[in-house]
């Protein structure tokens, strides 16, 4: 067991001073606080209490002022010898099997940049939209049919559309469906980008099968509440197919992005996928090593 002294360990200079100046005790802040409290208390008791409070407050302020001006009043406290033990019994630190040479780790060891997820999400959204619109054309004879149905999730007017109007173009419904589809797709794409490195062997199984199945199952249970219009008209087979298309395309796009090691705490620009030269300053080796 070793006994260490903080003065050696934590300080720059091994010699501690014999005395240290600390702010001197003073009653003025207390007096000022008491004065202020009494000043207010006078409102509920009697004016004389307020007067006393004002008096104390003025005295306290003046006293405090003189305490810090022109120089703050300090008193010297002698430095006492301390018996400091800074040791640990746990001297061995386990290593992660994936990183036997590393003590600290960010997991997983390799990861895709955030932009990969965004790209995957956008690609998947296109694939899904294409399939959904194909469905619209084939089954309902109108590209706008699935779009109007989707908009009804968030848009009151769409959910009131009559059967005939469902097949025609509505700019507002289109805008809402577009934004909704895009935003959710980007988020789900991000999720894929995040999750795929955790299942390194079969990214497509997760993206193309498991996730769409879970997602569709979840939607199946709650769609009635979320979007009664869509729930009443949905074709689950096509719906599942679009989900799978999204998953496979998004998964493929993400996997094809270059990954980078997370060993070093990578800067935000690199993680965000911005790879212009000069965005990553070289690590200052002098500071940390």
């Amino acid at each position, binding site marked *: *067991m*070793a*006994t*260490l002294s903080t003065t*050696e*360990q*934590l300080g*720059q200079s091994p010699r501690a001073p014999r005395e240290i100046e600390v702010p001197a005790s003073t009653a003025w802040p207390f007096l000022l606080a008491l004065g202020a409290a009494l000043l207010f208390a006078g409102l509920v008791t009697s004016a004389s209490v307020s007067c006393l409070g004002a008096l104390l407050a003025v005295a306290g302020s003046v006293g405090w*002022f003189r305490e810090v*001006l*022109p120089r703050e009043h300090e008193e010297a406290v002698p430095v006492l010898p301390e018996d400091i033990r800074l*040791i640990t019994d746990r001297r061995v630190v386990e290593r992660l099997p994936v990183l036997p040479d590393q003590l600290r780790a960010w997991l997983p060891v390799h990861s895709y940049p955030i932009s990969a997820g965004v790209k995957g999400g956008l690609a998947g959204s296109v694939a899904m939209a294409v399939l959904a619109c194909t469905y619209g054309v084939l089954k309902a004879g109108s590209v706008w049919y699935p779009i109007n149905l989707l908009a009804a999730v968030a848009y009151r007017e769409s959910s009131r559309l009559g059967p005939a109007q469902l097949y025609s173009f509505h700019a507002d419904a289109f805008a809402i469906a577009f934004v909704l589809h895009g935003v959710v797709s980007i988020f789900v794409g991000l999720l894929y980008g995040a999750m795929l490195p955790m299942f390194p062997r079969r990214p497509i199984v997760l993206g193309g099968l498991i996730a769409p199945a879970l997602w569709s199952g979840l939607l199946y249970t709650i769609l009635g509440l979320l979007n009664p219009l869509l729930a009443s008209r949905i074709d689950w087979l096509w719906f599942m197919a679009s989900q799978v298309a999204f998953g496979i395309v998004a998964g493929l796009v993400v996997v094809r992005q270059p990954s980078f090691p997370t060993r070093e705490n990578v800067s935000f620009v690199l993680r965000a996928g911005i790879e212009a030269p000069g965005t990553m300053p070289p690590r200052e080796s002098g*500071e940390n090593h």
Partner: protein
Amino acid sequence: MTAVTTSFPNAATEWRLPSRGKVAMAGLIIAESAIFTIFVVAYLFYLGKSIAGPTPREVLETPIFYTICLLSSSLTIHLAAKSLERDYGRLFLGLWLLTIALGGLFLYGTAQEWHRLIYERGLTISTNLFGTTYYSLVGLHAFHVTVGLIMLLVVAIFGFMGRVGVSQSDRVAVLSMYWHFVDAVWVVVFTVVYVLGR
């Protein structure tokens, strides 16, 4: 086991931290801004909701002159603080007194307006919602001007005693931050009460 004697590498060759006076004053200003925001919101919310008169349009007159006084005092206090930094003691004192005079003039303007409203127009804090919100908001600002003036006066007195030198310039700079804040708030109050409110 043996004693370990490794010590830290010299991590910080240059260790600079913000001035605590300025940080604290910034904190105070944030807090005060929140208070003023609430009063401004109340003022705007109650615009035109008074059940009985008088209305702002009937009784308020825009205090252009006094506003100019207060705003220009921001400039003078800035110059005063700068000149103290460069150790121009007399210039500092002169500009400082000018600031006090301008602030005092503004306060006189407020007092005069209140006097006119109360005794000529019969608008008091309990007359209607306009009275309540008007006197509260303008009064809150006037209170801050008063506190600022008291502090400026204390510095001026010490200045005459020759106790304010370059060594105090940081403290004076912090005080001038407060004064700038009081001025900035007046811009908001002025806009709300005399421009939007009428």
